[in-house]
């Protein structure tokens, strides 16, 4: 059994709904895989914690209900007794009662209207972009960048995928679709060059807990020491102190490249400073 399958059936293992043979295979995998064992323990404690919660939540007391209706009634009362100072009333108050003043104001408005109309016609070519239009435009540009990045990252040619990754630098750091495409690239792309570049692009997404957890998990999946070290250095850049236990395990794992182990040790020192 590999880690991917183990992660897939982990929920069923916890709920004890696996078949006997699968459960045995799962247990055998746990015995050999530290990462999966840690994950199982972590989720297992959450699972047991959930079981401890009471089945029904306590009902709110009778006085809570009364208090709610009281405050609702008080609010209604306040609304009704408040003097009516709506927009219409304010506008009506401005309008003079004498007909002569009314005429004068009407005439002044007419003159102003003609003037404004004339001015507007003269300045027509220069149309000011209002705030909302600018925001919309910006939104469209960022949508377009997202589209370009996402579609390039799925190309057959590694050169095109590399271009897609460099487009990912230009999207908003909150773009979860691009983030997930980048993570897929980091873990699965066929080209080490593309993977390495994608690790660099993850930096901008470093505030997200999803990114931080994914970087930690990705180190073991990599076959290239160059990518492993880039991920370790990214952990230091982003100050992912949660990574310390995994870095400790990496540093003492003989199956891992010596330079990578040394770098993991270095990172550990940096993070625990």
């Amino acid at each position, binding site marked *: 059994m590999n880690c991917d399958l183990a992660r897939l059936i982990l929920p069923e293992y916890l709920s004890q709904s696996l078949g006997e043979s699968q459960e045995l295979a799962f247990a055998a995998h746990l015995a050999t895989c530290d990462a999966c064992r840690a994950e199982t323990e972590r989720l297992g404690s959450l699972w047991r914690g959930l079981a401890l919660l009471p089945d029904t939540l306590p009902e709110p007391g009778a006085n809570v209900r009364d208090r709610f209706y009281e405050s609702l009634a008080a609010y209604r009362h306040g609304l009704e007794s408040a003097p009516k100072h709506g927009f219409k009333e304010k506008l009506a108050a401005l309008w003079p009662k004498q007909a002569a003043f009314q005429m004068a104001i009407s005439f002044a408005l007419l003159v102003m209207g003609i003037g404004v109309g004339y001015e507007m016609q003269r300045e027509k070519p220069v149309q000011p972009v209002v705030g909302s239009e600018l925001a919309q435009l910006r939104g469209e540009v960022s949508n377009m960048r997202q589209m370009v990045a996402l579609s390039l990252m799925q190309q057959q040619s590694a050169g095109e995928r590399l*271009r897609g990754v460099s487009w990912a630098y230009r999207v908003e750091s909150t773009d979860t679709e691009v983030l997930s495409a980048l993570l897929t690239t980091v873990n699965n792309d066929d080209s080490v060059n593309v993977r390495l570049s994608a690790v660099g692009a993850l930096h901008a997404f470093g505030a997200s807990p999803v990114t931080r957890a994914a970087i930690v998990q990705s180190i073991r999946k990599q076959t290239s020491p160059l990518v492993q070290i880039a991920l370790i250095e990214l952990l230091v*850049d982003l100050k992912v102190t949660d990574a310390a236990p995994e870095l400790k395990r990496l540093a003492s794992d003989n199956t891992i490249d010596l*330079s990578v182990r040394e770098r993991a040790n270095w990172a550990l020192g940096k993070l625990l400073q």
Partner: protein
Amino acid sequence: MLRNLIIFAAASMMLAAQNSGDKVTVPFRDPSGPKTLKVSLLNGTVSIRGYDGKDATIETAAHISGRERRPSHVPEGMHRIDNDGMGLDVVEENNTITIVGHNSSAHLNIQVPMQTSLVLRSVNGGAIVVENISGSIDANHTNGGITITNVSGSVLANTTNGKVTVSLNKVSGDKAMSFTSFNGTVDVTLPADVKANVMMKTNNGEIWSDFDIKLSASGKAPVVEDTRSKNGKYKVHLDRAMYGSINGGGPEMQFVTYNGSILIHKK
């Protein structure tokens, strides 16, 4: 999806015959369309040369003699091309020729039309050598060097233990490129008028270039370690990745090695 397999039954006879001078010719279905050659070897050396012709020619120089093996199962419509213990499959599909070596050490000399894109993978053994190609080249090795010379287009090259040497006559305008090694030197020659945004990073080596690379202060801010309260030290160190532009900037190019040096030559 259009699935066209051309199987080369005669090839096995030819390949199995001798130890030297074995040669098989594989045509591309559409010689004027975009062509791709994929080579995937576990052990071995592969040398690819662009030439003025329409077909791919594959020459093997395997020197390992072993007893003839019988394929354990034959996939429908497929034929195994065996050469004295050296398993080698050659398949043409949608203008892509795929060569997969299964075991033992292969030494392949391949000729393809100059306008061919390459996807090359090798793990152990000798080098990957590419010459005289115009297209996009993606080469990945583990224990061996990569030498790509006299090419135009775009290049991605990575190896763990070995040197990466690339010399480009002409680059395609908008393609990103990447040249990386873990333990080896990265040595790249680019046309004098190339426009690029470069990222260079080595942890234990040096960076050399005769290009006028304008280093930018942007990228990552310097890391400041302020431990004055603890031991009175205040250290500013620049991240080892350096960013810059050549001839005003252009597509992204990355040069990364961990234990080697980086050389960027002007052609």
